[in-house]
């Protein structure tokens, strides 16, 4: 673990990413204390430019709502959407990929055809349809994002499991009488952790973007303040009030950037190129 941190901290970008991410999480957590008023409250004149009023230093939007408050509360929702949808798609993708990769044969065939089914429909289009059909709400958005983003997880995991399956320690586990599910759970899955973590960090980023895109298509949840919502709403007034969509844009950019940097750092730390590779068949 310490070795891991050592390698991770060598990656300067990754550390910066982690710091940014930490700050954003902090902002999300502290939002209710920093900005106790509802972010929807119309508190000042509309289109108040940033840095003019000390209380509302980021200015206000089309309806005089405090942008800073929106950003802080939005951080929570955006991160939540990113995390939950990623977790859900991992929960779908990992079992499917693991079973397909481990058992092979018919199981693999069936599960992979099933996966292909989902990959054959353009994913954003499918997300749009799903949200429209189940009516926009934070739940349906999360579910839709999860549904369109699990296939790559399944594919990745299947590949990993297939290569791990041929490793001797899996054979050894078979010989020691462990049952298939124990083997998948104890021997194989822990070894797929690093590619999964790396992929997951990218998926969180992608989910935040998809949520904002859905908001833009008018498929956001109007009850929760998310970055996607602010940017989508601010986009129509971009000519009058650049700041409304600029700040959430920067927030998304930073978060996605941070997540990607962290992902890259994880990648480096988990797959050390420096250390000598053991002989592998």
């Amino acid at each position: 673990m310490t070795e891991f941190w050592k390698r991770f901290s060598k990656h300067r970008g990754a550390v910066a990413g982690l710091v940014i991410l930490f700050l954003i999480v902090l902002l999300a957590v502290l939002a209710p204390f920093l900005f106790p008023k509802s972010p929807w409250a119309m508190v000042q004149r509309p289109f108040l430019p940033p840095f003019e009023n000390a209380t509302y230093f980021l200015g206000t939007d089309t309806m005089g709502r405090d942008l800073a408050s929106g950003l802080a509360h939005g951080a929570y929702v955006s991160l939540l959407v990113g995390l939950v949808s990623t977790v859900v798609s991992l929960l779908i993708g990992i079992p499917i990929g693991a079973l397909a990769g481990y058992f092979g044969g018919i199981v693999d065939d069936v599960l992979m055809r099933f996966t292909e089914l989902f990959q054959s429909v353009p994913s954003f289009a499918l997300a749009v349809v799903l949200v429209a059909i189940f009516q926009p709400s934070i739940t349906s958005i999360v579910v839709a994002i999860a549904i369109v983003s699990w296939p790559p997880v399944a594919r990745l995991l299947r590949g990993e499991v297939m290569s791990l399956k041929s490793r001797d320690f899996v054979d050894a586990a078979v010989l020691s009488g462990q049952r298939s599910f124990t083997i998948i759970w104890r021997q194989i899955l822990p070894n797929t952790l690093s590619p999964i973590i790396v992929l997951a960090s990218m998926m969180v980023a992608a989910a935040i973007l998809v949520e904002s895109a859905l908001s833009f298509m008018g498929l956001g949840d109007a009850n929760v303040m998310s970055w996607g919502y602010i940017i989508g709403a601010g986009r129509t007034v971009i000519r009058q009030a650049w700041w409304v969509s600029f700040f959430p844009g920067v927030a998304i950019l930073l978060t996605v950037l941070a997540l990607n940097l962290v992902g890259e750092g994880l990648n480096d730390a988990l797959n050390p190129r420096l250390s000598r590779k053991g002989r592998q068949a």
Partner: protein
Amino acid sequence: MTRFLAGRLVRAVFILLVITVSNFFLIHAAPGDPAAVMAGESGDADPQFLEQLRERFGLDKPLYVQLGIYVSHVVRLDLGYSYRQQLPVLDLILERLPATLLLSLSAFAVSLGLGILAGAMAAARQGRLSDTLISLFALIFYATPLFWLALMAVLLFSIELGWLPGFGYETVGAGYAGFARALDIAKHLVLPAMTLGLFFMAVYVRMTRASMLEVSQMDFVKTAKAKGLRPRVIQRRHVLRNALLPVVTLAGLQAGQLVGGAVLIETVFAWPGIGRLMFEALSQRDYNLLLGVFVVSAAMVLLFNLITDVLYRFVDPRIRVAS
């Protein structure tokens, strides 16, 4: 090869069929129907009017009968009639498909071309400033919401600078023909294709870079060095070619996705493609049209996957000879 193609074809047909059926139920699960939408838009309706519409659209029949009718049409390559537009679905889609293909393929070319180029450059300069800058720029394009980027591009290039048209497929009513028309379309294409392309570029940059770095650790690269080859040749001939294999796989997956996935860009740039057609069909509950778009874009995905596989066989002799 023929066996391989035949196998893939059978599989594709099967998948398309399953997609048709499952999407059929999915779409019908949405609240409201096309009759209600049309009634809503007309600003006036009575029960008789709705009855008429539903009967005309065949919505009065039980769902399984509707499904049966639809599937029996689809297997005969007939995607049915658009309730709303009163035109065959296939005609509507074919009218839009060229624009979509043009946009997505050029975006694809932009993203793949630039992505590989920049990725290779970054890998060759690993750890140096230019590497960091390339990766950072790629990431910024990736991390900026697409619609925001699109609008910025329009503001800059079409309003401020006036270099390029900000939306649309061609200059309406200009009466261009032949080369002039092609040029006109090309001008309109620049902004949407670039915006979409730059977004996807990031993925290729990263992938090419990572893959090149990985390949450059491989033994045969050392062999190449031992031969006395110059680094440039090694990078191009040995590293890049091998590094491109995973990129090709991903590209294949993505090329197909682009066809129906450019809804956002098509909306912002008023590009008359099928992504938008899908979205409109969706909000109008134009079931047949929506299903048709799905079937066609799924077919595109499958087609592109097939092309990738064939291409992959071409690039990687191991697979080519093995079959």
